[in-house]
C-alpha cells in the first residue's frame, strides 16, 4: 500500500467519524462525558488540514503527521492515545514507500504498544484496546495464512467490530467509565467503537484503491 492508500484511509476516517459523531457522543454520554464524537471530529478535521498543507512523501511520514496532529489538537484521553498510536505506527514504517500487510501489522502492533504504554490498559478493561488487539491479531493471523490483503483487512475490521461489541458486557477498569463501576456494564465503549470505525475505514480505503482506475 502506498502513501495514497494511507491518505485515503485518513480521509475515510474523517468522513466516518463525522457521519458517526452522534453515535460516538451518545455512547460517551452513557458512560463518559459525551465528547468523544466531538473530539475525534475536531482531531481529524485538523488532520485533513495538516495533510493538505504538507503532503507527506511516505506512509510513515503521513501516519506520524496524523499522530502529532491528533496529540496537538484533540486533548482528552483519546487524543494522546490515538495520537501516540499513529505516531508509533508511523515510526515503525520508517520511510518505506510501499507497505506490505506484514509491515502494516507490525506498525499497528507498535501503535497498540504505544497506547498500552501510556494508558496501561489490557484487554478486558473496556477500552479501545478491546477493539484494536483482536483486530491486529486477526490481521497477523490472516497474513500468516497467506491471505490476500483484501481478506486480511476484512478480517481485521470484523474482529475490531466484534471486539467493540464485546465491550458491552464488560465492567470498565480504565478511563471515565471506570468511575461508574458496575453501572458501566451494558454499554459499548466509545473508544472501542471509534477504533472499529478506523479499521473499517482502512478496508474501505484499501478496497477503493484496488478498483481499476479509469484511463
Amino acid at each position, binding site marked *: 500500500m502506498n502513501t495514497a492508500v494511507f491518505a485515503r484511509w485518513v480521509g475515510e476516517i474523517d468522513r466516518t467519524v463525522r457521519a458517526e459523531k452522534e453515535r460516538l*457522543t*451518545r455512547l460517551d*454520554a452513557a*458512560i*463518559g*462525558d*459525551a*465528547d468523544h*464524537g*466531538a*473530539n475525534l471530529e*475536531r482531531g481529524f478535521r485538523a488532520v485533513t488540514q495538516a495533510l493538505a498543507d504538507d503532503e507527506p512523501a511516505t506512509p510513515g511520514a503521513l501516519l506520524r503527521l496524523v499522530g502529532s496532529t491528533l*496529540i*496537538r*489538537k*484533540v*486533548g*482528552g*484521553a*483519546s*487524543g*494522546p*492515545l490515538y495520537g501516540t498510536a499513529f505516531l508509533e505506527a508511523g515510526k515503525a514504517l520508517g520511510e518505506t514507500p510501499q507497505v506490505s500487510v506484514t509491515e502494516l501489522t507490525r506498525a499497528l502492533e507498535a501503535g497498540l504498544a504505544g497506547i498500552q504504554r*501510556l*494508558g496501561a490498559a489490557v484487554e478486558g*478493561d473496556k477500552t479501545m484496546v478491546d477493539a484494536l488487539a483482536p483486530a491486529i491479531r486477526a490481521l497477523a493471523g490472516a497474513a500468516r495464512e497467506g491471505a490476500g490483503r483484501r481478506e486480511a483487512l476484512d478480517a481485521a475490521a470484523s474482529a475490531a467490530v466484534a471486539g467493540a461489541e464485546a465491550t458491552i458486557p464488560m465492567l470498565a*477498569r*480504565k*478511563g*471515565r467509565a*471506570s*468511575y*461508574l*463501576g458496575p*453501572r458501566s456494564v451494558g454499554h459499548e465503549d466509545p473508544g472501542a467503537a471509534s477504533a472499529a470505525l478506523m479499521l473499517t475505514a482502512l478496508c474501505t480505503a484499501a478496497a477503493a484503491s484496488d478498483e481499476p482506475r479509469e484511463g
Partner: protein
Amino acid sequence: MKKLINSVDSVVTDALRGLASAHPGLRVDRESRVVSRASGPRAGKVGLVSGGGSGHEPLHAGFVGHGMLDAACPGEIFTSPVPDQMITAATAVNGGAGVLYIVKNYTGDVLNFELAAELCADEGIEVASVLVDDDVAVRDSLHTAGRRGTGATVFVEKIAGAAAEGGAALPEVARVAEEVNARSRSFGVALSACTTPASGRPTFELGETEIELGIGIHGEPGRSRATMRGARELVTAVMDAIHEDMPLSGDVLVMVNGMGATPLIELYVVFAEVAEYLSGKGARVARSLVGDYVTSLDMRGFSVTVCLLSEELTRLWDAPVETPALRWGR
C-alpha cells in the same frame, strides 16, 4: 437546548473574550488558549499552572492571579487541554524557579500533562506535577483510573499558590500541594444532569424524585441513583461517605460547592446541615466557602469538600489572594 452562546464551536473562545474584557488583571491568549497573570512571571517564584476541560468555571481561569495560579489552560468543554497549551503556559510563567502542574486525576488530563511535562523537560524547564484525586465516590484500586479530582483542586491551587507566592521552592510547593490533596475529600450529588453544547441533550435523565449520588464534574452518572430527600438527610449521606473515608475532626476547611444551576439559598441550607454534622463529629468549621467554584455546566446539585487543616495550611489559606473568583487580603 437553550444556551447563551453564539455557536457550539465558539463557546470556549467567546467566553475567553469575555474573560479578557472583564478582568484586566488577566492576560488571555486566545490563540494558544492560555490565561495568565497580566503582570507576567516573577523572577525566582515557582510558576503554578493548571488546566482542564472547560465547563467547570470559575475553575481554572478564575483562579489565576496573585497568591494562586500563574496560568490556566482551558480545554474544550469537558475535554482536557492539549500539551501545546501546557507547554506555552509553562514557558510563559517560568520565573526560573520551575513550574508546578496541578492536574486533576482524569486519564485525559494526566496523559496530556505527562506529554507536556516531558517536552518541557526537553526544553530545559523544570516541571513537577501534583495529582488531585479527592472524590471518595470512586472506589480506588491499582487497576482503575483512580479517584477523580474535584473540589479539592480549589484548595490545592489556593494553598500551593500562597506557598509559591511566599517564595517556597518547587519541591516544597509540590509537597504542600500533595499534603492538601491528602487531607481533602469530596462527594457530589446531582438533582439534574447537565447538557453539553456538543450533545445538546442531558447526559442522563432523572425523574421528579430521583437524584444521583456520587457524581463527578463531567455530567457522568454517579455511584448510584437514589430518591430525593430532605437537605439534612441528604447531607448526612454525603458526609458519612466522606467521614467513612477520612475521619473528620479538629479544624476543617469546608466548601459547599454548587454544580452550576443550584440557587445560593439552597447551598446555604446545605451548609447549615454540613456545619451541624461536623460539630456532631467534634470537628470545627474553621474556614469555609459557599458558592459555585467547580461547576458542571448547568447541572443542579452540590458537592462538599472537606480539608483537615493544620496551622501551616490555615496560614497559607488566609494569605492574600486576588483572582476573579477568590479574593481577600488585597
